[in-house]
């Protein structure tokens, strides 16, 4: 049957909506190969339609299969792009190596371009009135209190606070910090709010 490999690819993406799987280079290559094969058969049969008119319908069927493969490949890439965007918003502009390696080189390039575009948009915010921009990845939830208690989940090193104090974030250490200054680390899983 036509266009079956591509469906396996999409089912895989649908199964794990909250994680990104390694880019499936091999399958993409096989699908593109199938497309070239279909195209070649079509070229041959299109030339033979003078002798056998009903070949024309066969050509049309293969054409539908080509379109179908194309649609599915684009949908696969598009779905991954959506996930890669989420990575930018959640991890930030630097991806941990184990996440980075799930992306193909081209995807990583796309991630960087997306990140650059986003950064330059965020920098432009309020520029007219002398602002140096707003980080839209912050302030995700309605504020409840100015300070919160957090537990450190990993050795993160030093953190300099706005008032000049420097604290060391060591695994399992507890801190009482300004909400505004630790929300990004919470999002990235370095800190955890104690409730």
């Amino acid at each position, binding site marked *: 049957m036509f266009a079956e490999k591509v469906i396996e690819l999409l089912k895989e993406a649908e199964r794990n909506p909250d994680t990104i799987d390694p880019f499936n280079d091999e399958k993409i290559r096989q699908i593109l190969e199938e497309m070239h094969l279909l195209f070649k058969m079509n070229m041959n049969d299109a030339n033979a339609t003078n002798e056998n008119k009903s070949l024309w319908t066969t050509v049309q069927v293969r054409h539908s299969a080509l379109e179908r493969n194309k649609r599915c490949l684009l949908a696969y890439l598009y779905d991954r792009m959506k996930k890669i965007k989420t990575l930018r918003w959640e991890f930030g502009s630097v991806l941990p190596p184990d996440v980075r390696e799930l992306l193909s080189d081209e995807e990583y390039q796309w991630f960087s371009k997306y990140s650059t575009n986003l950064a330059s948009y965020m920098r432009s915010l309020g520029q007219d009135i002398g602002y140096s921009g707003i980080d839209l990845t912050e302030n995700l939830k309605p504020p409840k209190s100015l300070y919160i208690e957090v537990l450190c989940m990993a050795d993160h090193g030093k953190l300099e606070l706005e*008032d000049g104090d420097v604290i060391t974030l060591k695994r399992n250490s507890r801190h009482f910090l300004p909400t505004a200054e630790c929300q990004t680390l919470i999002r990235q899983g370095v800190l955890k709010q104690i409730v």
Partner: protein
Amino acid sequence: MDPIDDIELSEEEEEITAETVLKTLQSAWQNERLAPEILPHHNDMVECMLGQIQHMERNINKLPKTDLRASIHKMELSRIKFIICNYLRTRLNKIEKYCIHIINEERQRMESGTNYLTPAEFKYAQEYLLNMESHLKNVVLDKMPGNMQTLELNKMAIYPNLQTHVFLKANDTVSCVVLEDLVGDQDEEIDLEEGSQHILQYKPVADLVKTGKVQLV
């Protein structure tokens, strides 16, 4: 100066308080969150609020750190920052999702001077689309057989679903909102009395949302 001009000017420049701007921005945020399509931007209000925040932050720095008033002001500022960030983020999400459609529409709107996007948002949208196009081309399209290589933006475009159902509260009384009735091929008209609440399709009330006659809830 011409006296008539003078009057018009002073009417336009009528003092709007920061309090009013904040209220308007909050309802713009709510509408943006709940409307399927992107709404006309409110950049002037965003900038006004940013200015207020800046001003306030300078004043807070003059207060002792433990001053109760400093905490109160900081809390209010973080509330306003939350609205602004959420509002702008919501708009970016829509711009990305519907980018092909929004760019097309926006080009037409720019001709008539009724643009919905800020210049920075429009620039972002174009760059986003460009990056997406080149990614799709590089990874698969260019490797397809000859007649399959074209990027068919019209096919790929995603449109906001204007038929989606929304909740609203009428700010003013609006009569004769036409609901399309699909079953009996007969349209139904309803009145939205001030303060009343409804659930209905977005499309017939889209303009009312934009003019502020109704508030999405």
